[in-house]
């Protein structure tokens, strides 16, 4: 077949038309998250016109090779990795801040100071009933503050458990979707709009999973992906169309562990890792708080037992319970505070018992212990805040780098619109010329 100007021009028009469609599609999706800019790959169509006619080239116009997706696999992997780190650090920081708030806003330190203040005030007149009542009420406030701090920690732990359970569900849901996408990818033809859409979907799902847990990916030639959870040495989460779902175990002390069918999973990134680390802090804080409560109970009750109450009977325990959760003021009236030393008569103003109680509390250094716990948590939080800021910035930079390469630039698309419009017009002109040529030939008489 000889060179056919009409066919060439028609292929040009078709190509320009498709290119315009793709440009319009890019513009329409300029704000879509996870959308990777597409472009049309064109190639020349030329061949020898027939067997034996080597020198006689014939041009057949342009051919649409397929759709190209301008995604850089390395940058995408970087976005996933840094995103998982940032999600972990961010979740961890929130958990740390919540623990800090639970301990600080319960007012533990001021309440302890309040009790010591009341005891000091009581030394003015140890038999004054109103001072005694005020002291007992301060002790009650302190006990309730311990309960409050403990409840605060429980609330933080509950929130983290809820979020982690939801996170595991999300990972499994996304993995199932990824497995379906894998199957569809294996069946679709490369270069088609459908294939490109599936690739976008695949990368989007990978990005979402990496927000929950750190994953390692490997791509097959057919563009299906195999996902390992917990880094390159972790067990497989998705392979082809099969999913090995992740599961969550909550230990007695509230800490988390993860596993799937293959074995246990150690997460070092993603919000699930952050929640696990936050729960470790909750456990440690709870142990610290219980130790302080136990030391308060032991020192106060010990001093009480060594003295006598206002009615001359041996002092009864000031606090009941053993931990921060169940500590309570157990005296029924302020008269029960043992301000007098052993052997003193009823109504004695001898403040030796009170002095012993105060020195027991100060030598157990309860307020120092509370300050130490607060300092420990708050300095850990401060450190986490710095890390989270840094990782956030790194993840932002990686995302920006990917966006610069894969995102839509409206100015560029505007230029493309003009370019392909011109190409369309030029090819149309070629059709008109072909038609004119034909008319010219027909006009020969």
């Amino acid at each position, binding site marked *: 077949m000889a060179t056919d100007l009409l066919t060439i021009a028609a292929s040009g028009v078709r190509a320009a038309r498709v290119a315009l469609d793709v440009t319009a599609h890019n513009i329409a999706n300029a704000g879509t998250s996870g959308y990777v800019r597409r472009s049309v790959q064109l190639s020349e169509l030329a061949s020898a016109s027939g067997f034996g006619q080597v020198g006689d080239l014939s041009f057949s116009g342009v051919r649409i090779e397929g759709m190209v997706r301008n995604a850089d696999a390395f940058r995408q992997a970087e976005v996933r990795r840094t995103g998982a780190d940032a999600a972990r650090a961010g979740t961890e920081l929130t958990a740390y801040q919540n623990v*800090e708030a639970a301990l600080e806003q319960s007012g533990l330190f001021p309440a302890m100071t309040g009790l010591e203040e009341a005891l000091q005030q009581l030394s003015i007149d140890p038999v*004054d009933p109103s001072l005694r009542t005020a002291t007992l009420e301060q002790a009650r406030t302190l006990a309730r503050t311990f309960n409050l701090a403990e409840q605060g920690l429980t609330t933080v732990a509950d929130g983290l458990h809820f979020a982690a359970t939801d996170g595991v569900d999300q990972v499994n849901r996304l993995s199932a979707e990824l497995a379906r996408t894998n199957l569809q990818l294996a069946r679709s033809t490369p270069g088609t709009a459908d294939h490109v859409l599936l690739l976008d979907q695949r990368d989007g799902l990978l990005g979402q999973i990496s927000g929950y847990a750190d994953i390692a990916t490997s791509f097959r030639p057919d563009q299906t992906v195999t996902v390992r959870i917990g880094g390159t040495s972790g067990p497989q989460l998705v392979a082809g169309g099969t999913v090995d779902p992740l599961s969550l175990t909550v230990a007695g002390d509230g800490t988390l562990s993860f596993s799937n069918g293959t074995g246990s999973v150690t997460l070092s990134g993603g919000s699930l890792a952050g929640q696990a680390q936050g729960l470790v802090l909750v456990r440690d804080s709870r142990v610290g708080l219980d130790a302080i409560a136990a030391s308060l109970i032991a020192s106060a009750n010990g001093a009480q037992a060594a003295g006598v109450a206002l009615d001359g009977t041996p002092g009864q325990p000031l606090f009941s319970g053993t931990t921060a959760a169940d500590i309570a003021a157990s005296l029924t009236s302020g008269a029960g505070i043992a301000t007098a030393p052993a052997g003193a008569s009823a109504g004695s103003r001898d403040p030796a018992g009170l002095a012993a109680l105060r020195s027991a509390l100060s030598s157990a250094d309860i307020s120092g212990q509370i300050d130490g716990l607060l300092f420990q*948590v708050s*300095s850990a939080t401060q450190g986490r805040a710095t890390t989270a800021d840094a990782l956030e910035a790194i993840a932002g930079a990686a995302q920006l780098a990917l966006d610069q390469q*894969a995102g839509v630039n409206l100015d560029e698309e505007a230029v493309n619109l003009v370019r392909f419009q011109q190409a369309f017009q030029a090819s149309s002109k070629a059709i008109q010329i072909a038609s004119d040529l034909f008319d010219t030939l027909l006009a020969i008489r």
Partner: protein
Amino acid sequence: MTSVSTSAFYDRFNLDMSSLRSRAEALQAAIGSGNRLTRSSDDPVAASRMRTLGRADAFAAVDLSIAARASSDLTLADSALMSFTDSLIRVQELATQAANDVLSASQRAGIATEIEQISGELLRLANTRDSAGHALFGGDTAGDAYTLDGAGNAVYIGTSSASDLPLGDGQSVTRGLTGPEFLNFGGTNLFAVVKGLADALAGGAADPAQAARDALGSLDTGLETITTQQTVIGTRLNWIDLNTERRTQMGELRAQEEADVGGTDLGEAVSQLQQTMTVLEASQASFARLSSLSLFDFLR
């Protein structure tokens, strides 16, 4: 080719402006509240220091009220001792009169009656109550300091010593005097001397004038003992004043440190806020300029 994608452009401006805005808000909060720290993790060391300082402030307030109480009790004791001195001087005058040999027995009996009255007054004085309603001179006892036995002798029933009140920072002051500390001297006590004198003048002694002369010596010693104890009270009041002064100075130092550690440096914060606002305004203006720049506007 690197090109900035449109969504990356918007995202970056969004990120920049929201971080500037949150910084401005944090500065505004610091200026508004006067506190540099909104939570412990803003500066853990400073927060811990603030806790310690706040604790010391709370204890200083209690110390102040204890010092005021100790001060008022000691002042009460001082005025009671003044009354003791006045009564004792009256007894001395009466004893001097009674020591005159020319007085008749009935005149001495009259003097004896007055001395007995004064003796009762002295007992009531010794049982004065302090500001909390407890025996001022009874140490830590719950009831009276002195009581009369069957023979009409005043007997001390309080505790052996008065307890100390803490004044803060390990300092303390003894809250008062016990009766025996200023009423006992030379193996006897003032009540016994006065009662002995009254009894002798009422006819209990063979030579009442001599008994009165003997009593004068004891009364002198008694008066001296009381005066000595007044000096002790004065010294204690001074000690309390000294501690209060020191506490005030420490309080000022603490307030200074609290302002240094946890307060907002207004000048610095305001200039930082101004700087942040300038940058924010500039980036808003540049965003408005850049975002209105679209090639589509020029293609007609």
